[in-house]
């Protein structure tokens, strides 16, 4: 790529209790690109995403290396500057969409607070933007009056995506955003992510252990094992003709309907 990557991670090392859990030589996401990050549980995918937002310190992890976002070195950035980037320029969505919304607030309260926190000039303006964002993710603006427990999983995940959209985030860190949803809802969310990327040029770091989903959605894929990237490349190529042993195992471990499960 001739353009500068939107997010570039170099030599990222994360240690928890003296143990190396992530040792990432290089990973980058280009503008408007959807990068898949695959790997089994505990391979360090989520930790990598948390490290980008500087959220690993609260769990007692030691982080080293360099994370550059649009020319800004995020490592060692002070808390106030980091807060201005979190949610606003780099947004994150999570595996369990309902429980990642505070149950005691209405969706609209959370939404409007987030917009106000990141610079909406007035409450009325924030409400208007929130309503518009919900329409963009094909949800009724009436959902703003609901509590998270009154949403379905798919609706809640759309709400989370709508927040990133309303703030015009440049990067979306999606940590297993569809693995708690049923297959049809999952397909809707994937379509939504793809069309948002096409319309806004948002970059997406899509973390999943589901190779089929990654093959369908992502432009490139990086496969992680025990904190290291073992293979990286164009998503379809990597997943149809894996060159590395671990990736082959991962691909082979996906059960196929009608075919023998390869082992």
């Amino acid at each position, binding site marked *: 790529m001739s353009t500068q990557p939107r997010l570039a991670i170099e030599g990222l090392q994360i240690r928890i209790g003296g143990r190396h859990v992530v040792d990432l030589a290089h990973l980058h996401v280009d503008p408007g690109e959807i990068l898949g990050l695959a790997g089994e549980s505990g391979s360090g995918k989520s930790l990598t995403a948390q490290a980008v937002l500087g*959220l690993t310190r609260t769990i007692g992890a030691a982080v080293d290396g360099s994370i550059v976002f649009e020319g800004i070195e995020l490592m060692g950035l002070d808390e106030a500057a980091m*807060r201005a980037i979190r949610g606003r320029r780099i947004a994150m969505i999570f595996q369990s969409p309902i429980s990642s919304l505070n149950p005691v607030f209405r969706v609209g309260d959370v939404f409007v607070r987030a917009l106000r*926190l990141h610079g909406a000039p007035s409450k009325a303006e924030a409400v208007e933007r929130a309503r518009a964002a919900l329409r963009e993710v094909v*949800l009724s603006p*009436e959902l703003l009056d609901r509590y998270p427990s009154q949403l379905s999983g798919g609706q809640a995940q759309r709400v989370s995506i709508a927040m990133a959209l309303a703030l015009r985030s440049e990067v979306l860190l999606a940590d297993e955003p569809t693995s708690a949803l049923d297959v049809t809802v999952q397909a809707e969310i994937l379509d939504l992510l793809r069309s948002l990327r096409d319309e806004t040029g948002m970059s997406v770091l899509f973390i999943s252990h589901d190779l089929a989903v990654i093959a369908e959605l992502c432009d490139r894929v990086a496969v992680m094992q025990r904190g290291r990237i073992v293979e990286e490349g164009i998503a379809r190529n990597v997943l149809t003709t894996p060159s590395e042993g671990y990736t082959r195992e991962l691909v082979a471990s996906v059960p196929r309907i009608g075919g023998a499960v390869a082992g």
Partner: protein
Amino acid sequence: MNVQPLPETVAASGSGLAGRLRSNRLVVFGLSVSLVIVLAGIFAPLLVPYPEDAGGAAHARETLIAPSSQHWFGTDQLGRDVFSRVVYGARVSPLIAFLVLLIACVVGVPLGLAAGYFGGLIDEVIMRITDIFLAFPALLLALALASVLPPTIGSTTIAIAVTWWPWYTRLIRGQAASVAGRPFVEGARASGVSHARILFRHVLPNSLTPLIVQVSLDVSAVILTVSALSFLGLGAQDPTPEWGLMVNQGQQFFPGQWWLVTFPGMAILITAVAFNLMGDGLRDVFDPKMVRRRGVLGG
């Protein structure tokens, strides 16, 4: 199409709280009696026949009169109307209880929030200090403090509050720690919310339910402690119409002049039971499992 308003659900959950409250008669009883006690305290001057007897008045020729139509609860050793003093007493113990619980919450809750949310060293330091306070039996510690402080209502309040806050720190810490691990806290962090705001806007509201129940149950415990301290001569002093003090002063006349001990004693009992029932009821209201069990048992 995938969006349908749910007015029934909203309406049902709205009336559910009031409905559950109404269905539980003991709670309604506890709540009403508590309310009557509070109102009696507020409007005491309008309710009692001899307001001056609540203070330092003395009527040498009317001492130790048995209950009659003139003095419903009789008079004490200084000729003061016991009924007036018992009603005025509703201004003392419940007020102290309110202040004690307020101080205990103001001190205990933020410490518990910080300990549970941040964990690590902050948690260790706060909880070990809490443990030191909890290592002493509460009444004993309050007694020790009250005995070194001047015997006033303010000292009583402080002495009891010092023994009370660690319980709230412990209670809130456990809640805060479990709430801090829930995904919406990480979500809030990831959308740029500050620690302070997360603590008070996200963790606190989700940790409050057990605190509300505990506080309402504790009202009666504090009232009993206040009375115990006064009874031992370490709290309110004459002529304050404090119930425990009145029981203390009346005990030397007990076999003959039973009304000096009985009426303030009853006031303590009724107040403690009423607030306790209210707290129990709140716990049932907030705990759906308890309500269901009650429903099965009660038909």
